[in-house]
């Protein structure tokens, strides 16, 4: 089964999530640095890999947090030194990814981004990502 088939079967795209929705990705301290070419701090392409156990990449839906009148900073609770970056649902779909809601007991906005993530896609994500909460001190 190809990755696309596996994603379509086990992590199907939820078309009710509009392309405009911001998807938040937690970025650990070792995954951002100053890009002298861009003149700003940005996440590494390494921050956009699927989990080591093969589980698709986790993100958090800002529309769910907003609907609950929450604050995106709740995604970083318990993770000092982390930053929070965003891609839109449309951006990840343009790279053959599905957006699959996967609420957790502790975080209702949790979702999975499923699809092949070759280095070129991960680099593109890292270049397109916009900070929702920049790295501390940056």
């Amino acid at each position, binding site marked *: 089964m190809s990755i696309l088939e596996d994603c379509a079967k086990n992590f199907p795209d939820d078309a009710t999530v509009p392309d405009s929705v911001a998807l938040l990705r937690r970025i650990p301290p070792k995954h951002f640095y100053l890009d002298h070419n861009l003149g700003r701090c940005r996440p590494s392409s390494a921050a956009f890999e*699927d989990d080591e156990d093969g589980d698709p990449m986790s993100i958090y839906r800002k529309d769910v947090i907003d609907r609950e009148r929450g604050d995106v900073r709740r995604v970083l609770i318990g993770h000092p030194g982390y930053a929070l970056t965003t891609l839109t649902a449309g951006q990840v779909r343009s790279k053959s990814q599905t957006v699959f809601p996967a609420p957790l007991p502790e975080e209702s906005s949790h979702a999975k981004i499923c699809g092949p993530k070759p280095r*070129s896609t991960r680099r593109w994500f890292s270049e397109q990502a916009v900070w929702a909460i920049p790295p501390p001190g940056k």
Partner: protein
Amino acid sequence: MADAVTLPDTGYGLAEAAILSQPGLSTATLPDVLARPAVVTEAAGPPAPTLRKVLIRKRGPEVSVEIQASAPMPRPLLKGVEGVVDLLSLPAGWNSYSAKPIQPQNAIRAIRLLAEFLGSETPSPAAVPTVRGGIQLEWHTKGVNLEIYIHSPENVSFFADRVGSDEACEEPLAGHEQELRSWLERISGK
């Protein structure tokens, strides 16, 4: 401030008995060792160093690193090595998900690669951990994006492109060493 440091041929590093008595390797440990007058002396010139020995011992969360070099190591190289060594202290799940600890053999490969390819004027890379225990060495400067991927000691590749142009390449390192050197020279300003 010295432009380079000399590492004694007998080697330097962290005495295993000493480091194993500490809770773990901190990011400051390697620089602290390098800063000791007994092991750091100024060098007159920057001949390319050869790493004769790179030894990493891990016992649970405790890590010791021993490196023997034959010649002065330029500061950018030392900084790069420190960045790699720093990754060895990352625990499982360091990314808040399920990331693996960095595999010591990948760190050794990265250190040897830095010693082999970095010139005295090459800036230090960002040493970036990957979720599967690998290491990325990254430079984003002087209009060039250069990323070296170390998935395992045998599986090393690199990507490079020039900002604002179609010039780009992505190759395995084996057989393309000269191409990598060419990209590194560009960010070295040569």
